[in-house]
């Protein structure tokens, strides 16, 4: 593995008017890493994502991406540096077709004055086609994203995030609302991305986490509780106490 980390969080704290959503979180991700972030509801997982992409600004601490601080950058510039995020509730653009969603995401030169042409560059078109295939929505090409089924929306959004060619993908609950079959498909999809991108996945469905089998970080009450492989985490008593016990019942 490359020694230089892709993303580094240094003592990040987020304080919402006295409520500490994150306390002193430090985290490091290598390029092409697959990292899974778990934790009970309200543990601060989504806030962590929000903080990385600049939707929430840390009260203290800093975030480095490729050794550059990004804490103060505008959101779109953070994306342009190479971080893209999928939201928890699918964030597709409902009145655009599936293809248009991907094309909007695949735009390489994002200058607005270049938008006054009817057709995107061939390279972007090809890339979009390729991703369409990857996410398995080729036959839904012209469908309006708003009328896709829930699972299809999740895949489309993953596709959109991939289309930006970001080096780091943040996937917030990509399997929310999916059945076991779709969950497995999503896991396969994500595993196929690793190698080309670093991926940070947030979820609490343990069967999905096990299917991914990545290095896992457990967040609890805004703090990092444990880090380790899935089997280490499974064996950990503290994790069991705050989280897994409950999750097991959920799965059962």
């Amino acid at each position, binding site marked *: 593995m490359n020694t230089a980390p892709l993303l580094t969080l240094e003592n990040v704290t987020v304080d919402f008017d006295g409520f500490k959503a994150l306390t002193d979180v430090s985290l490091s991700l290598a390029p092409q890493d697959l990292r899974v972030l778990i934790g009970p509801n309200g543990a601060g997982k989504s806030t962590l994502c929000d903080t990385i992409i600049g939707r929430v600004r840390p009260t203290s601490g800093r975030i480095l991406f490729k050794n550059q601080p990004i804490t103060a950058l505008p959101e779109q510039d953070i994306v342009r540096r190479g971080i893209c995020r999928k939201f928890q509730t699918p964030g597709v653009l409902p*009145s655009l077709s599936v293809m248009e969603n991907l094309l909007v995401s695949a735009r390489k030169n994002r200058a607005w004055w270049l938008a006054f042409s009817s057709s995107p560059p061939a390279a972007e078109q090809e890339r979009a086609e390729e991703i369409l295939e990857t996410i398995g929505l080729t036959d839904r090409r012209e469908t309006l994203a708003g009328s896709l089924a829930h699972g299809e929306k999740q895949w489309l959004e993953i596709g959109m995030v991939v289309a930006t060619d970001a080096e780091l993908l943040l996937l917030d609950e990509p399997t929310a609302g999916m059945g076991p079959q779709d969950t497995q498909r999503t896991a396969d999809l994500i595993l196929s991305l690793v190698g080309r991108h670093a991926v940070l996945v947030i979820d609490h469905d343990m069967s999905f986490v096990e299917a991914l089998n990545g290095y896992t970080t457990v967040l609890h009450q805004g703090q990092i509780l444990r880090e380790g492989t899935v089997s280490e985490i499974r064996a950990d008593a503290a994790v069991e106490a705050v989280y897994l016990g409950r999750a097991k019942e959920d799965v059962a």
Partner: protein
Amino acid sequence: MKPASLITILTLALGAAAPWLISSYELSLLGRFLAFSLVALGIMLTWGEGGILSLGQGVFFGLGGYALAMNLKLAGLNLANGDMPDFMQWSGVSALPGFWYPFANPWFSLVCVVLVPGIFAAAFSWLVFRRRIGGVYFALITQALALAFATLLVSEQAFTGGFNGLTDFSTFAGHDITSQGAARVIYLITFLLVVASYFFLRWLLGTRFGTMLRATRDGENRVRFLGHNPLPYKVVAFTLAGMLSGMGGALFTLHAGVISPALVGVVPSIEMVVWVAVGGRNVLWGAIAGTLLVNFAKDEISSALPSLWLYALGGLFILAVSFLPGGIAGLFTTPRMPRFFQRRRQEAAE
């Protein structure tokens, strides 16, 4: 030939032949309503496609109207002699204010008809959008803008003609604009500009700009977190709408022979939105049809049953937005509208 092109050609032919088909009074009505429809096209662009509701389009309408009216007011005056428009004389002004001088040039005026509203719309929308003020906030701020603009026009009587506005025009660039023939020419210019704007917007909405604008309407945050800056798309759309309104205002001034604060304030501005809501906010021809329909209806109903008209207008608005968000055009087409009934809480929370 496809039926669509047939209808297009028929409409264009009828529109172009109107001066010889209908009475001069009806032509003047049609002309001023077509001028209104330029405003409606702008609202369709910002509100329908961009999700930006402006309750202050009257401001840009007024800027365009006044820019032309200032020239019309100066026409025939000998400025070197110290001549002034009549209202300035009895408002106690001793010399023509400096900013009026350039408007003596008709071509400068024409440029200002588009540029002044354009620049103002760009500056205003940039200031507001860059702080991510949108949605309901933006609607309310534009409404306050309409109120402030109308108030300012009325109170700066010495420079603007005040509540009376500017009226009594006779020539533009040396041409008589009051004759029967001039009325036809003005109508045809209006008609041409509406047609040109229609095809321009049709092209624009077909480009990637159109896609980005709709994308921004659907999910501004999603667009931002895909690495795009939504700001320029919104500002450009709003600026274009402002320019269209300005053009509409200038043409209206020519048709009506008057521009006054009563045409630019809060209520006229919101009525402009009614036209588009009724016609269809996502379809270009819907915006034009809505404008003509509502205005002809107003002309018919308001004299016969003035109190009924207000009930009708209010009811029309409630019905259109509640039950027919696609407007009349929505009955004929399946426009690409946002999925209205889907709660999008994360957007609302912004």
